[in-house]
């Protein structure tokens, strides 16, 4: 099992020129061991918390930044949840500050790799 901290809102950075560096709603921020004692501010309204089945090592790859081959930031977080696929019931649970438990299969199905779109946008 692992616990995951996800951004619940977009960054408070309004500068569009810094958009590629800004956190977005759904971005995966940190991945911790099951039972992690989260801080007072690691919850709503800034963060959502998930508990995912399976070993932490298997999903630890999802907390990285998106960088190109020259290590330049393409997007602040490479992986995020597709919030449009979160059910209303799940969203209500998250908004209430509860930890949402799900299987690793469900979690992986929700994860989006933002690198292809970030790279394509930069190449426009």
């Amino acid at each position: 099992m692992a616990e995951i901290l996800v951004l619940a809102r977009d960054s408070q950075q309004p500068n569009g020129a810094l958009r590629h560096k800004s956190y977005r709603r759904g971005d995966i921020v940190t991945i911790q061991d099951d039972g992690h004692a989260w801080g007072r501010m690691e919850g709503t309204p800034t963060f959502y918390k998930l508990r995912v089945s399976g070993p932490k090592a298997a999903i630890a790859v999802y907390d990285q930044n998106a960088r190109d081959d020259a290590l330049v930031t393409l997007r602040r977080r490479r992986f995020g949840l597709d919030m449009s696929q979160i059910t209303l019931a799940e969203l209500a649970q998250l908004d209430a500050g509860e930890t949402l438990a799900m299987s690793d299969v469900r979690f992986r199905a929700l994860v989006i790799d933002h690198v292809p779109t970030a790279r394509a946008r930069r190449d426009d």
Partner: protein
Amino acid sequence: MPTTVTSTIAPSGGDYTTITAWEAAKQGDLVSADQIQVGQLSGFTSGLNERLIDIDGSTTDATRYIELKLATPHAGVWQDANMIYYDDVGGSNYILKNNDQYVRLTGLLFRMGYGGATNGESACLVAGDGIAAGGSDIRAIGCIAKKLSTSAGSGSLYGLTVTDVHATVAIVNCLSYDWTQGSGIGIYIITAATASLYNNTTAANDVGVQRDAGTVVVKNHLAQDTDGYNGTFSASSDNNLSEIAADCPGTNADDSITVTFANEGSDDYHLNDTQAALTGADLSADGTFAFSTDIDGDTRTAWRKGIDDGASAAAQPIGALAGQIGGAGLPRLAGFRGGLAGFVKVGNIYRPKRWLWLPPGLAPQGA
């Protein structure tokens, strides 16, 4: 007047449990918000195991900036408590990278190990590769960076690194040592707009300070490395010291000087040395970065090179020192268990493991 917003980063009972979560929550326009965002590390008794920490994407200026520090400052000596460490960072990576324009890294401790062969791992990228143009003021003050002693890879490791052409950086009172893996470097300026390296100590590194590009001014630096200084530094560099010959950049060079530290084997790089070559320049009115304290926070009076201004007086017997402490109606220095006479020095701080308060006239018993 900006509002200072202080958050605690702690394993339990704090606001955040990782620097990454703190930074994600605070990322924003600090200038419009008129805020200084301060993150304070505390409670990590064995350190904080975190890597690929980015400080990036916030709007800052000279008075509205980001600061990361320890809630309780270190004592100028390595401690595991509240260090930030990662013991196998992986290829071309780092523990912490700053890409914002106005940031202060104050008294942080970094320890890195790496078992691979890829060159280019840095414990702390004081300024990374994405500093925006238009000015910056990035400070690493009183930080300590060291290589994990058991690190066994062949890839080059670096302590404190600057690698952005827009970065104006001050690295002051910092200690970087034991970077011997691959071609290890204590403080590495790959490129910068201006880097002011003042009163730092590098020791037991393959290279103490290396400059590849940018204007790099080194003053009052104490290097005890295989190669103290590598590269071409600004001609305004001044009052540097090296253990090897024909090494120091700038004027008033003190080459071929071996310095005695308090206890290098125990990572204590305070001075236990009073030789004249240690005396540097007074930078309290420096035009680029003026300061007046050492790594311990003590006011610099002797302006000795490196991180520590202490050890400015010869050892005094304990009896003579005790005579300076206390007095009628005041607490008295009752004494130390044997063997300290001759080691106690004016200017050093001694922290007792316990205090024993006695009323006047009552002798200590069994202490």
